[in-house]
């Protein structure tokens, strides 16, 4: 039995499926790909499948990972081509390899966030760049309910620029098992900080997008 890691992207309408839906979708891809997948033991056998990080509904990613196990040796080239054959169009299989590290070595994730708002302030970028100078207290969901929390301790980097009236943010957030920050909180903090919370959700109205671009280890290197 060999562990195998799969790197993939999840974009477009696929970004609206939940984590559970993704699990189900990937399980079926694995079955169709016919790659000698290892099943869990027990009453309800299903392909053994572990995802690196959660991704909130509506967010896109070009840097997702899941681990599986296959019977015997792993032919990564074959697995890659089989998975590509079976994946839906908005799920691009980017790489398949035998991993040398565990998901618990993941420390950070990086995101590109774009915010469009009809009342975007002209100094929006400057204000976001100094946002972390003072406390950013939000109500954050935790394992034991909700708690007031200064999310600055989760933000390793946050820079913004304004292009054609839209705000483009690059941010690095902590993503280890104990300190995972959902990038939605950053969107919330930025909107609140700029006083552009009011939402016009109509098509063509105010909107934002989140794209996970990289997953990093504690040294700030790409996690593989």
């Amino acid at each position, binding site marked *: 039995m060999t562990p195998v890691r799969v790197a993939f992207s999840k974009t*477009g*309408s*696929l*970004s*609206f*499926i*939940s984590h*559970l*839906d*993704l699990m*189900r*979708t990937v*399980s*079926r*891809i*694995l*079955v*169709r790909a016919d790659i000698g997948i290892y*099943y869990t033991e027990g*009453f*309800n*056998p*299903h392909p053994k499948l572990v995802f690196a990080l959660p991704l909130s*509904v*509506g967010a896109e990613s070009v840097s997702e990972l899941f681990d599986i196990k296959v019977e015997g040796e792993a032919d990564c080239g074959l697995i890659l081509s089989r998975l590509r054959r*079976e994946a*839906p*169009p*908005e799920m691009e299989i980017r790489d398949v390899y035998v991993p040398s590290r565990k998901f618990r070595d993941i420390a950070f994730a990086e995101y590109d966030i774009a915010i469009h708002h009809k009342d975007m302030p002209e100094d929006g970028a400057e204000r976001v760049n100094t946002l972390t100078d003072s406390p950013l207290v939000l109500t954050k969901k935790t394992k034991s309910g909700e708690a007031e929390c200064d999310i600055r301790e989760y933000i390793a980097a946050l820079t913004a620029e304004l292009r054609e009236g839209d705000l483009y943010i690059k941010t690095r957030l902590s993503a280890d098992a104990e300190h995972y920050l959902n990038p939605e909180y950053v969107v919330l903090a930025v909107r609140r900080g700029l006083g552009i919370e009011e*939402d016009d*959700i*109509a*098509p*063509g*109205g*105010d*909107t*934002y997008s989140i794209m996970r671009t990289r997953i990093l280890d504690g040294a700030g290197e790409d996690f593989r």
Partner: protein
Amino acid sequence: MDSKKYGSILRTVSKPARYTGGERGQVIKDKADVLCRWAFCFPDSYEIGMSNLGVRILYGALNSEPDVWCERVYTPWVDMQERMREYGIPLSAHESGDPISEFDIVAFTLQYEMCYTNVLVMLELGGIPERADERGEDDPIVIGGGPCAYNAEPMADFFDIFSIGEGEEALPELARLYIKMKADGTYSRRAFLFRAATELDGFYVPSLYRVEYGEDGTIASFEPVDERVPRRVIKRVVEDFDHAYFPTAPVMPYTEVVHDRIMLEVFRGCIRGCRFCQAGMVYRPVRDRSVETLCRQAEEMYKNTGYDEISLTSLAIDDYTCVGELTDELIKWTNENKISLSLPSLRADSFTRELMAKISGVRSSGLTFAPEAGTQRLRDAINKNVREEDILNAVHIAFEAGKSQVKLYFMIGLPTETDEDVLGIPALAAKVIEEYYKTEGRNKKRPPQVTISTACFIPKPFTPFQWAEQISKEEFVRRQKLIADNIHDRRIKYNFHDSEVSFIEAVLARGDRRLGKVMSEMHRLGACFDAWDEHFSAERWQAAFESAGIDPDFYTRRERAPGEIFPWDVIDVGVTKKFLLSEYEAAKASRPSKNCREGCSGCGALVYGGDTLCRKMRG
């Protein structure tokens, strides 16, 4: 479809994956090659609609025509409806994202009466005039089909045309007629509907019939408006079922849907003839598929889907003559691939140890049997033909195999039911518990659990009980309480259906065109998702009946005279009214009748010939 068309709205609604499309297996065509566009609407949520085998078949059959493009549409959930109304977003099809008002044909499958209010919501959200007589030349043709189309008279005002019977051959024919008339310039709504009704089999155009009512409220006459229009519309059946189209690469939903598994359609029709069952009558004659065809379809579907469950769907799966051979062939490869087999319609009288062993290979769950009634007398009256010893034998086999949970389905309010019959229900459950402790080799770690469910009997068109009265809501409640009060064992659980809902279903099931006013009024009052407990409102229905000046009891609380003209007499399902009446008489005498395999009862379905059990019986 491009999910950006909804802007940020998708972030504000529950389960947005219901609206984004893009699933594997969806059919995308180039509009330039397409001459007839169908919007196939399922008037309930995505999760329910995506589970429907009939829709999968028709979607595939229509898309097999190169110049026809059939797309899917579901009822948006209430939060999404609110947003669509607020921002003026029209209801659109999943594949292209185009508004349904731009389609040539908008089809609705009518699977149950309680989805009718959703049809009107979808027409409104789609910007299509509600009433058929308000639609202009540029509006789509609105067609209905499915089991409720056998009597969709309460919806007659809103549909241009109904497809009666099985649609996989009929709907492509209708599309071809549409394309032909558009091409030769003879198309107009009127001309198209007239030609469909007079030249094709199985199409009913309500506006081509005039209905008059007598002083007592019953139908005095139901006549075609033109002598070229057939007096009765003959339902369509697929004669060569073994070779009929069956989709083996279905659309794969991303999000969880109700029936997310391989569904093999083993046979159509039923040999049994239970007297309450509409499906058992309207799907006659019985036609089956060969083991070879079914095994090929199962393997293809597994390769195309990756599903981990195969469900053998049919009205009573163990009536399939080759059920042993079929399951033997399937488990040759299903067990090793961790695929479970499920047989959702087991009959207690033909359940065997061999079948039990085959369905408990991989992740098997509890077992369900449907005795339908609590005493032998009443089971004979409804022609269920299952004996108490059959039921106890079946649960014995299940217990022996380590099961400890059994579900038993019943109906209350069946014609001729007495309190003795009602009390037979908890008594039977108690005997099942006793049987558990009599079973050697039972699972001693767990106590047994028997769940009784009772549905409220709804008299349906084209059944021997179409003449019968439905008991009052109060009487349903009394009988439910009688059962609950006579369960003295915590290992027996009792669930029952809401009699208020069953009452409305009964009104609509045997309703006539005058109920169209009630449906319009329901829509005006905001009705939607009536099949969902949390959205059903008995008060709203009452208000709609009152404002339309309709007494709902007229449809439920009276036994019809043998000669009464029914709204559905315009439909010919093969099975004759004379046969149904003789079966009703037999029910009153608690006399069962033969099943199709034991001998022909002369129901009338024989006229369909083809590759059917009827033909095999005649040799």
